[in-house]
């Protein structure tokens, strides 16, 4: 009986990413429902096995370790083949990915190798009798679809951050597995990995995002947004498409329909009018603050708290107040 659940643990540069714990958490909860074990597949360059213990803390009964020098960089061909081959022999009811840049690449390949559809970018998932049911935002988040997967195994990917990683400590058994085929022979090869500023928090990981739009009036005024983010201490900086198109910020900072979709605890929109394409990327944030000179701007319709006025005057005062509040406790 196929009742185990396999999750893929994402790592980069030999370190687990936050989404790895989210995947393990979902595998744990689905395995509990199915009455099976939670297995987590961890792949990377030799030495990655050292991260197995951390996955046990988040509920993995078994960590399937795949080590190979050619798995240090992203290698979706070799990884997809290895994961699919493991699924075929492991007795799995479900396979869990997180829809990060890597997960979005891997999950459909694995599903296709297994001959099944992929329920992607889910915000919730559960086992319901012989089906797996999940929710998935469609039409730029304006409609929520409940989707039902009858294929076995059920291959799913979760929206990053939709699930809070939960500890369920145990000592995971480690199983070492060889990769399928020769990972060094993959047809698509990474020739260079470009690291962003590693000092910066990624938009997907940051509990607070301070985002700027055209209301800042000039690229150099983005410094105000960066200063406010720095005052929070745990904040990343985002931007609207108008701003990234104008080259004020890199495209990777863009939040919206065609950029990143984020749901931080706090989203501060600075000089952002709230075009529909931008709202699609941040409307699921838990608390939204908007500062904008136009009282009629659509951003105030989704903002929990709004201040009307000139961002160039208000933001420095807010930055000082946040810094004081942070310092007082």
């Amino acid at each position, binding site marked *: 009986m196929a009742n185990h659940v396999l999750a893929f643990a994402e790592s980069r540069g030999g370190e687990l990413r936050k989404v790895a714990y989210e995947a393990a958490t979902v595998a744990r909860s689905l395995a509990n429902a199915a009455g099976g074990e939670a297995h987590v597949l961890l792949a990377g360059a030799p030495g990655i096995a050292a991260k197995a213990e951390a996955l046990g803390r988040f509920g993995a009964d078994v960590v399937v370790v795949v080590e190979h020098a050619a798995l240090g960089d992203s290698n979706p061909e070799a990884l997809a083949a290895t994961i699919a081959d493991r699924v075929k022999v492991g007795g799995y009811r479900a396979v869990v990915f997180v829809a990060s840049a890597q997960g979005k690449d891997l999950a459909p390949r694995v599903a296709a190798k297994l001959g*099944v559809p992929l329920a992607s970018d889910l915000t919730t998932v559960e086992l319901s009798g012989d089906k797996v049911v999940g929710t998935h935002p469609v039409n730029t988040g304006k409609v929520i*679809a409940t989707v039902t997967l009858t294929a076995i195994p059920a291959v799913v990917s979760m929206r990053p951050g939709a699930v809070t990683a939960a500890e369920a400590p145990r000592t995971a058994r480690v199983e070492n597995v060889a990769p399928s085929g020769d990972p060094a022979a993959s047809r698509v*090869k990474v020739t260079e990995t470009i690291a962003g500023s590693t000092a910066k928090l990624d938009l997907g990981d940051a509990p607070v995002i301070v985002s700027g739009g055209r209301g800042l009036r000039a690229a150099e005024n983005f410094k105000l947004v960066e200063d406010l983010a720095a005052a929070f201490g745990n904040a990343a900086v985002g931007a609207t498409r108008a701003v990234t198109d104008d080259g004020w910020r890199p495209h990777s900072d863009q939040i919206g329909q065609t950029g990143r979709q984020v749901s931080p605890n706090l989203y501060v929109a600075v000089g952002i009018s709230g075009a529909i394409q931008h709202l699609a990327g941040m409307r699921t944030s838990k608390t939204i603050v908007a500062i904008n000179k136009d009282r009629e701007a659509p951003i105030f319709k989704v903002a929990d708290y709004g201040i009307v006025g000139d961002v160039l005057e*208000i933001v420095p005062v807010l930055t000082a107040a946040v810094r004081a509040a942070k310092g007082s406790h």
Partner: protein
Amino acid sequence: MKIAVCIKRVPEMDVRFKIAPNGTGVDEAGLKWDMSDFDGYAVEAALQMTEKLGTGEVVAITLGPDAAQETLRKALSMGAARAIHLKADPIPFDNFAIAKALAAELSSGGYDLVMFGKMSIDSSNGAVGPMTAELLGLPCVAAASKLDIAGGKGTARRELEGGAELLEFPLPAVVTIDEGVARPRYPSLKGIMAAKKKPLDVKPAQLGDVRLTVTTMALPPERPAGRILGEGVGAVPELVRLLQTEAKVL
């Protein structure tokens, strides 16, 4: 250089959607339809590639109802040479079924490159491109933000969280297109006239079993009405107080 571009007809998003009476889809009354955003970038990138090489053919392919032929005509008016319509009404939500139908059509086409948008803007799965690559046994780059083809091989860039990677791959290959590769051109009047005479083949889509379905659709809960706390710097202390005591995020 023979390039297939797989495109999808989607509703324009700049509306308040209503749920259809059967509860499993959106009410289509009054919706306007167009080519999905990322698919437009893919068509443009394909056209620019054949224009740069001075040779080649771009074939636009869609799977959908009869109305999806409008979307194919748009690709033809942008400059694609011909189009193929795989009939399916409605479009199933099962991405593997769609990939199977596309792979069945593409496998005998002799394409050097098969392009997709990185995801459709309505169902937002991003799965059909990589799945089709697997079924065709071709190398795949998902969500390329830069793409260059020269000397029988391709180079691409992919954006990662906090970084990027540069890739190299042989042809034939499947590439799905992220924003930034190319801004789609507007069809010229001449292009629109020419598109009416370009060949458009219609075939049934070979979908197979559908094992992923939408069981209900609903509108997300409305956010409670926001509060404008005030104007200017005078409102800052109240904002900070609320972030501490009410939202508890500071």
